[in-house]
């Protein structure tokens, strides 16, 4: 008994070692498993999700089961905060994952490059729907071989939330905030008349810096996967944040809780944030109803006036027992205007599936925003989000970028210098070339 278990242990250790080796070497010679579309999928699947996303899937699973006899869909809420520990171990072990998993967009490329064999290719199911999805989401769900491996779910379309009462008091017309320069000028007026700062952000997270790069179609990495965090667009983005801070218009807060508290306390006049921020505003600060409005992000020249922050996808792991049903259910939920719109209405998940954005719900005024049709604004911007290349190394780069942003914005260093430096560090850490 004892010797047998030791043999078993040695065997699995060897197995896991080969598993790691495979994961690290990038795309392997054999192609990833693909799924064949079936007219009538049957059987049962398990789905992992979290929070409101799990609530939405549980609701839609019931509908799917009644319209598709002989199917059972079991949705499990595995909790958002540590879901990736569970998913990573399952991918590494090659077992233990369900038929369908939820993966956020900023983790998608990392998983696809680290486990090129880990997921089922979905080209036969949604391959012809590329034009129907948020382009930035589609890019992030595309594997290293060009195939589509995840069904995009919700978009984190970014816009500029503003306190209408502060802007009014300072005589600022929100529709005039079309460029970052205009916003900074308005910020000075707002500070002079109301005493409020322009924005409360967590400088060290680097998230706002990412948005400002993405709206210009730039990011930490370029389309070829080279390090481009010191591109002219990136320098421009960081300079804007630095200027906002240097003029005393920035309130630096710590993390999620700090941002929510600061917004609730009314510290700042504007908040560049994704569409899901509406959910946070409406649940944590009901008393501020009627005091917010939304406009597209200010632009750099003729850049896009939006970016992406957050959002998820559904993916079928290669180890799924019933990939056919899993893929069919994912497409039924996500590549369907009515179902996507229902998730907007009931769970506040903003569709990445563009045909859904013409549903009536996106045309309705929102009481919280004083009757403004905010969802229409986000719907218009979603198709315009510039796709960027997250690569598999976004996680490795994020701390370095965060430090660079802090050095420039809070510690007064020159943006170009810190970003050149960050580019070198990222190139060393990831083995990638610096774009040039």
């Amino acid at each position, binding site marked *: 008994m004892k010797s047998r278990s030791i043999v078993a242990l040695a065997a699995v250790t060897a197995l896991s070692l080969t598993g790691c080796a495979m994961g690290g070497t990038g795309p392997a010679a054999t192609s990833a498993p693909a799924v064949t579309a079936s007219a009538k999928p049957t059987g049962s699947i398990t789905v992992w999700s979290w*929070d409101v996303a799990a609530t939405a899937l549980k609701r839609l699973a019931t509908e799917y089961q009644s319209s598709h006899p002989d199917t059972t869909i079991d949705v499990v809420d*595995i*909790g*958002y905060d540590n879901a990736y*520990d*569970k998913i990573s*171990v399952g991918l590494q072990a090659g077992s233990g994952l369900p038929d369908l998993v939820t993966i956020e967009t900023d983790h998608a490329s990392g998983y696809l490059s680290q486990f090129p064999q880990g997921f089922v290719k979905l080209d036969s199911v949604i391959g012809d729907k590329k034009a129907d999805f948020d382009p930035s989401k589609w890019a992030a769900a595309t594997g290293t071989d060009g195939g589509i491996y995840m069904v995009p779910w919700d978009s984190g379309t970014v816009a500029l939330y503003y306190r209408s009462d502060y802007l009014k008091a300072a005589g600022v017309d929100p529709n005039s905030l079309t460029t970052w320069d205009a916003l900074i000028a308005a910020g000075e007026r707002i500070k002079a008349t109301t005493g409020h700062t322009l924005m409360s952000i967590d400088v060290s997270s680097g998230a706002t810096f990412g948005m400002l790069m993405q709206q210009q179609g730039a990011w930490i990495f370029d389309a070829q996967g080279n390090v481009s965090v010191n591109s002219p667009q990136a320098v421009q983005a960081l300079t804007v944040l630095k200027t906002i801070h240097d003029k005393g218009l920035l309130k630096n807060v710590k993390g999620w809780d700090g941002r929510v508290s600061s917004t*609730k306390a009314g510290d700042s006049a504007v908040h560049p944030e994704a569409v899901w921020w509406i959910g946070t505003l409406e649940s944590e*600060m009901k008393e501020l109803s009627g005091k917010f409005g939304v406009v597209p992000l200010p632009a750099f020249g003729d850049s896009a006036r939006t970016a992406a922050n957050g959002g998820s996808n559904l993916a079928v792991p290669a180890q799924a027992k019933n990939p056919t049903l899993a893929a069919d259910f994912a497409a039924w939920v996500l590549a369907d205007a009515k179902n996507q719109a229902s998730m907007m209405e009931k769970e*506040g998940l903003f569709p990445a599936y563009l045909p859904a954005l013409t549903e009536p719900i996106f045309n309705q005024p929102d009481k919280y925003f004083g009757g403004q049709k905010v969802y229409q604004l986000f719907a218009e911007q979603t198709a315009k989000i510039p796709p960027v290349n997250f690569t598999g190394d976004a996680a490795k780069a994020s701390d370095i970028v965060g430090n660079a942003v802090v050095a420039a914005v809070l510690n007064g260093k020159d943006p170009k210098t810190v970003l050149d430096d960050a580019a070198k560090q990222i190139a060393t850490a990831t083995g990638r070339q610096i774009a040039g």
Partner: protein
Amino acid sequence: MKRLGLVAAYAALALGAVVSLLPFWWMAIASTHTTSELFATPLPWLPGPQLLENLARLEQSTEFARVMLNSLGIAVVYTIFSTLVSAMAGYGLAKFRFRGRGVLLGLVLLTMMIPMQVLLVPLFQMMASIGWIDSYQAVILPFLANAFGIFLMRQAFLDFPDSLVEASRIDGAGELRTFYRVVLPVALPQLAALVIYTFMSQWNAFIWPLLMLNTETSYTVPLALNRMIGLTHVDYSGLMLGSLLATLPLLLVFLFFQKQFIAGLLGGAVKG
């Protein structure tokens, strides 16, 4: 002068007590407010009216009562068997003379140096291949033999006089009877300390239960509380209430075994 020193000492102690109790006070206060109120400036410091609503929501969104039972069952079973294994193995390593005893003890201690992260994937694969994923035994079994516990119990038994064991054998008691009736009662303080430690470690265990349990109704308390951290809304009031309720069993275990525990702490203080 002496009085002044006493006053200063009490003041320092009172300050220490306030500092260490403040988080508990805040936890209790936070569980009686809505989450929205917890983001207000200034923070609320007095009880609010939301306790029952929070409790209802906690139960409804995580099946908290069921989850508490799961945690309790897992922790109790784990504690009983793990302390038993520790005591028996420790006794064996302390009192039985056999070839390779030192090497064996060294090997046991060596396992303390293996980081948890290295074990996760191979252990996960073992559990998957036996088909134990999503079962309670998969949460309990892999960590039943606990090197720290074995070492602690070995040290406890080391000073136990050999002549007592021999006397018991001469009187006709079997090995098991000698262990339970003669040896174990002497080590009660250490055993109580180990029980508290083992129960706490299993009660707070997060990563392994997270990997093993795949059904919401079979979750343990930390996993259920983890579900309250959402994408756009962290249910802090529910989290605080859940954490508060989750500390109660720990408190009870500690109070129950405390007398023995303190005796255990002092056990090594005076060498007799």
